[in-house]
């Protein structure tokens, strides 16, 4: 069921699907990102964590160019992201994003939210788009809500719809920007479960999150950021049991209390 409209080259598992070299970003005088070097390969699950203001959200939003970096280079599937690039929308079609505040389209039903991308952007005809939408809604386990409007759903359900909506575009990479931070505790689990299933199915995932249990279970690599820099990155066991930097230790103390 792949669309043929994308012209992003296929990647092998060895070349990085996303690579950042020397990336820096300023908001006015304030430096949000400092000389970031990062590589992400296909099928990798990356968790980015750190104290607030560390630049983790900024970093992930630079990956689909919702934010613009001023220095350094970012390559996605071999295409460089920069101010004058053509076809940013085509690149974005291959990157799914899930937001902290869900950002579902309130005037469309759940089903229509999921059909919007394939039908309007990729030109997939309505019945195929609907099939795919229902399939994705089943994958996130809420197919029965298809004809409801977002405001009729709980927070956890809305976030799962958001995930399904992104999946309908069959992206290569999924970005998660604090997906459970705005949810009530009892709904966090259902969203994390969905994300774990997604990870198991082989999706490349980059998650900014505070959920350390999830990180331990799913991540291939944990990237710790503070003050706009990557302080350290490691496998989960090493990261939690053997933090290298003082900053990391302070953070872990606070968050695992």
């Amino acid at each position, binding site marked *: 069921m792949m669309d043929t409209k994308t012209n992003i080259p296929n990647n092998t598992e060895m070349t990085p699907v996303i690579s950042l070299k020397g990336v820096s970003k300023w908001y006015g005088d304030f430096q949000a990102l400092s000389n970031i070097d990062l590589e992400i390969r296909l099928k990798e699950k990356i968790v980015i964590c750190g104290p607030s203001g560390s630049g983790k959200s900024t970093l992930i939003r630079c990956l689909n160019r919702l934010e613009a970096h001023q220095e350094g280079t970012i390559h996605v599937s071999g295409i460089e992201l920069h101010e004058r690039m053509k076809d940013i929308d085509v690149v974005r079609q291959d990157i799914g994003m899930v*937001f902290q505040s869900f*950002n579902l389209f309130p005037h469309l039903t759940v089903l229509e939210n999921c059909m919007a991308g394939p039908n309007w952007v990729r030109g997939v005809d309505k019945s195929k788009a609907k099939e795919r939408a229902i399939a994705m809604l089943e994958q996130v386990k809420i197919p029965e809500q298809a004809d409801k409007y977002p405001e009729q759903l709980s927070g956890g359900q809305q976030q799962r719809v958001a995930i399904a*909506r992104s999946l309908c575009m069959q992206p290569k990479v999924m970005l998660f920007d604090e997906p459970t931070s705005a949810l009530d505790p009892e709904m966090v689990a259902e969203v994390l479960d969905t994300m774990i299933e997604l990870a198991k199915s082989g999706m490349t995932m980059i998650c900014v999150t505070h959920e350390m249990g999830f990180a331990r279970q799913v991540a291939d690599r944990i990237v710790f950021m503070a003050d706009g820099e990557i302080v350290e990155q490691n496998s989960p066991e090493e990261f939690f049991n053997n933090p290298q930097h003082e900053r990391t230790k302070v953070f872990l103390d606070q968050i695992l209390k």
Partner: protein
Amino acid sequence: MFVDTVIEDKALHKPAFLIGLSLTVLAIFFALNFTNSLFGEFLRPVIGDPTESGFFGRFAVSLVLTIIFVLNLFAISFFKLKVQVAIVWLELFLLFLAFAYSFDLKMSFIQSRIPLMITRGLFTTIYISAISIVLATVIAIIGAIAKLSNNGFAYAISSFYTSLFRGLPLLLQLFLIYKGLPQLGFMVDAVPAAITALSLCYGAYMTEIFRAGIQSIPKGQWEASRALGFKFNLILRKIILPQAVPIIIPPTGNQFIAMLKDSSLASVLGVWELMYLAKTLGARDFRHMEMLLTAAMIYWALTIVLEVIQARIEEKYKQKS
């Protein structure tokens, strides 16, 4: 209104308030002096000839009026909200009718002229307003998008336009168009001049309304759309504008209602719309109030129709979500 859960004692049930109100109203009625009106006539048995009743007569009339007024308010305060509204509307409407009646109008005068007022006057007013409304809306959509764009030309033209056409009185704009354009070589008749002035003037106000409506859609909607790979036109058309519509409906409805009334300015150019006929149909017999009041009722009725339509549309959007 988001009413509080605790109900206060009604002001009208407190003795202190009632007394204060009564004294104020008494003073007002006394100052206005209704002795020479109908009420004075009613009280003839008590005060004698109204014109010669002096202080006593004036005081008596004011006292009676005060008692009627305060008792009326007091009685109404016992009813439920909806009933109160209905009663007060009815009383205000009757007062308005009394006002109209006091002019000693000839109904036959109105009857003979009403067909012309409706077939010519009302028809012209509606058709001028309708075309202007459509044009103003088109201008507003273009203007709002231009004002929100990154294109220097678009932004400059749009902001200049809204500044200029909100900066001049509509009547002045009408004259500038009617008298000015022909001198530049563009001949324009009265009706097109009126439509142009109305469309441009209200288009400017509506541009601001549309712009604010579009801007009020949260940034997250833009981000989610962009993240899915939507292009600008698609985002605007399918995501932003549909959400902006329920927001802009109340202020836009206001503008439409105002445009309906401002079409009356075309009368200055001699167009035979409602206002013009209201003024001139009385000329032959030197009776003006009949036609003016008739036009007033027609304008009011038209406005109420528009208000009802607006309320229905707002309801429909509330139900949708």
